[in-house]
């Protein structure tokens, strides 16, 4: 495998009762590359993300981040180590203003600790960074709207802003365009392209929109039934007969078209 490995799993498994939702997965994610995880519904992709980000504890196996064994790390510790995670179902603070959502993300990254006496408005650096992120996401005129009152697409953008506030080294994005309207999807794609072009962030994506996957990905990883099926660049993966069988019962994945 060329390039540095930033994230590595070793025989990672999790079992819920009789169901092995993720079974013995050992993969490596290359630094600063754009990797997309594909697979039919129920393949265990989100569960896999949950294991990497620390929401679930594996029943066996390990996770390595930047060559450190983070298997025992809490989610918070992983976030502060440089991970960023967005969720399949929008995960914002609905009753707080959009601005406050982002500000909380920035405050956490600033690691000021549990201060009790200074007013939260008094932290100028945090406030400026919040404004910058809102501007980047084109949400500045919605800043004083409650997050729960935003459109679905705006909430997704808000969540991206919150994730980016952490300046993560690796971005785990779980279907970021899910539920977005036709006009909003290109904005997200453009944003991901921008981040990719900047070249200092590793992106791992779960997605179903093929045009997006084709346009952005350096590598594809295919998961089926909680197991790793194959991995490679989009061209070779789309020719793989096993992949075709798993996905469409014989038909080719229209990646190259």
């Amino acid at each position, binding site marked *: 495998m060329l390039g540095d490995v930033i994230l590595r799993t070793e025989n990672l498994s999790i079992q819920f009762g009789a169901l092995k939702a993720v079974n013995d997965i050992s993969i490596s994610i290359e630094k600063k590359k754009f990797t997309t995880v594909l697979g039919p519904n129920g393949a265990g992709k989100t569960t896999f993300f949950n294991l990497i*980000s620390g*929401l679930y504890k594996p029943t066996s196996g390990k996770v390595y981040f930047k060559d450190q064994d983070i298997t025992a790390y809490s*989610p*918070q510790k992983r*976030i*502060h180590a440089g991970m960023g*995670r967005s*969720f399949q179902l929008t*995960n*914002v*603070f*609905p*009753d*707080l203003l959009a601005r*406050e959502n982002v*500000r*909380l*993300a920035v*405050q*956490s*990254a600033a690691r*000021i600790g*549990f*201060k*009790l*006496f*200074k*007013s*939260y*408005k008094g*932290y100028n650096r945090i406030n400026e960074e919040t404004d910058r992120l809102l501007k980047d996401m084109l949400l500045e005129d919605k800043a004083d709207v409650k997050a729960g009152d935003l459109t679905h697409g705006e909430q997704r953008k808000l969540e991206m802003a*919150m994730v980016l*506030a*952490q300046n993560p080294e690796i971005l785990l994005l779980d279907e970021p365009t899910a539920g977005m309207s036709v006009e909003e999807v290109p904005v997200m794609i453009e944003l991901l392209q921008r981040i990719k072009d900047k070249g200092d962030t590793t992106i791992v994506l779960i997605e179903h929109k093929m045009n997006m996957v084709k346009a952005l990905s350096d590598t594809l990883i295919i998961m089926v039934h909680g197991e790793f099926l194959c991995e490679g660049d989009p061209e070779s993966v789309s020719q793989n007969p096993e992949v075709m069988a798993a996905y469409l019962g014989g038909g080719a994945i229209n990646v190259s078209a």
Partner: protein
Amino acid sequence: MGNITSRFPNLITIPKLLWLLAGIVILIIPPISTTATITMVSRIMIFAVYAMAYDILRGYIGIIHLGFALFIGGGTYFVAILFANVGISIPILLLAIVGTTIYSIIWALIVGKIAAKSGLLATAMITMAFAEIMRNMMERWRTVTNGLDGLTFRVPAPFDNRTFMYYACFVFLLLMAFALYKFTTSPTGRVWQAVRENEQRAVFLGYDTNRARTIALLVSGVVAGLAGVMFALLNRFANTDVLAMQMTYNAMLYSLVGGSGSLFGSIIGSAVVVLFQNFLLDLRGVHFIFERWLIFFGSLYILVVIFMPKGIMGFVETIRERWKHKKGGKIYES
């Protein structure tokens, strides 16, 4: 006057004048009122602090603590037991305060540990059990506490002067309100709200939500315990009612009627509920229909739930929003 207001537009504003007026009214109540009124307003101020402490948990961090009485009850009993059995003096009062604080800290840490492992509902039920354990303990320890019949005791000077006690309660309210205001507008206070809104998101922003929760419990518990100390000084009496469910319900009622998530709401809620109850009890003499005052009291809550589900402050907020949209007019900054 005109010159001053144009030069210093922020110095004299209507909100500030009203605050000043409120302060003056509160300050001049004692000389012009009966002792019963002075005692009642003192009670309102103590309950306001109690309700604010409760709302830190309910309205800010989002914990439902069904045994919250154990904090105010602890404070009351520390004072009562020490005064009745050891002696009556200021040093002993300070000892009671220290004892209450330690007691509150211990309970806050215990509940914090439980809330970290269990869900909202389980924590709520367990806290209810805790209060019942304390209440039962005080009942059994009847040689010292007299159980439900209660303990009477004197209080040291100058707290035995009702006017002094009134002003002490006022200062207490101001101090606690200021402290809680500082806490809720601090970065930690914002994290509390985030935890309430969506704990998972807060975790995935990197926040140690268990720690945030424990801090909220410590703040809330200690403040409520101090309210208990003031309560004992005011009533010169303590019985197991102070640890009963009704006392927890009181906190819930005052903060919900006033508006959860707003410190000012808890103050308003306490005032409204106590004044309304008093108003109804006073009316007994006017017409026999008011003998069933509980019916009117209950109606108040039904009305609040139907028309003002977010409490009085929430209701006022809604009116203000509508007024703002209608007129597109000037909004006074907070």
